[in-house]
């Protein structure tokens, strides 16, 4: 068994390097493209206009929040969701299902978890009928 020891050591180092690389992968990510505390994030595309509003403002982690999506010139969707994630950090699946509350207006309640690492940048994907149609990046407090 003695000659196998260096092999174990090398293998151990390789596994550790793999773990550390996968841990640090994606450290650099996108920057905020919207100030969610200033008002709704709005974007117009080929499919129409999409706006995301989160409140109450200032948008703070670990507080109950409402999520409001406004669609203009879109075909009536079967389902609308907001998918929250943190760029460069796997935070699990946090999907907020919205229900319709008017023509082109969808609302739901959710929570943005606190990342104890101090990261504040969040990504909100607007999922319409199972497809991510728009993405906003913003900082939360």
């Amino acid at each position, binding site marked *: 068994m003695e000659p196998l*020891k*260096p092999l*174990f*050591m090398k*293998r*151990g*180092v390789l*596994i*550790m390097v793999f*773990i*550390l690389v*996968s*841990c640090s*992968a*994606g450290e650099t990510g996108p920057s905020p493209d919207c100030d969610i505390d200033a008002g709704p994030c709005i974007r117009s595309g080929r499919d129409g206009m999409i706006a995301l509003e989160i409140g109450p403002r200032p948008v703070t982690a*670990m*507080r*109950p929040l409402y999520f409001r999506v406004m669609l203009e010139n879109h075909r009536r969707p079967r389902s609308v969701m907001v998918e929250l994630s*943190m760029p460069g*950090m*796997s*935070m*699990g*699946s*946090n999907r907020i299902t919205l229900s319709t509350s008017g023509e082109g207006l969808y609302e739901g309640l*959710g*929570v943005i*978890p*606190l*990342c*104890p*690492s*101090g990261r504040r940048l969040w990504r909100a994907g607007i999922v319409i009928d199972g497809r991510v149609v728009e993405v906003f990046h913003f900082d939360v407090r």
Partner: protein
Amino acid sequence: MSVNSIYLLMFTSGLLSGFSHCLGMCGPLVTSYSLGLKERALLPHMLYNLGRVTTYILLGGVVGMTGSFLGVMAGVQGLQRLIMILAGVLIVLMGLGLAGWFPFPGRLEGRGTLFPGFIERALGPSPGRLTAGSFYPLGVLLGFIPCGVVYTALIATARAGMEAENHLFGFLKGLLMMLSFGLGTMPTLLLLGGTVGIMGVRMRSRLQRLSALVMIAAGVIFVARAV
């Protein structure tokens, strides 16, 4: 979404998060206690992780029963801070012990352990070294450390709890969801602990000084985040 797919999703979420997230929070601690283990044993790692998962199950059950993530978190916030500070101090002491910089070196000599005596006494019945049984309560305690991935899993559990027919179903559903998530996070930390364990003594001694510095820094960060 079917019942089975919820549990599968939670397990997968834990598995994926483990590689990118859990290592940052639990990695320094797992590395440090692994370096302190004399034998190449799986039992302490299993017990530590089962302790952690026990806490997740407990939180999942309560969150599922009440259907409230924020309410439960508000209740354990003070405890979480205290545990963060204790864990941070513990990691710093372990780092100092590993580097041979502990202010009372006489207490460590010939003990075959990284821990100062008073911590050993707090953690296990054997005064000379940590016993395997010490790792389960350690895992239970450290399972309360604030963690974004665990928060996300608990938010999903709260949603499932709100949809449950009654409190008992909510409790059971929450418990099983967090069990699935916790089991998913285990392979990464078992792999890390096992990897440190299979390293030869020479390799460990080379890594010790570097690990000690990382541990001291990690411990200080733990305390800084809590206060």
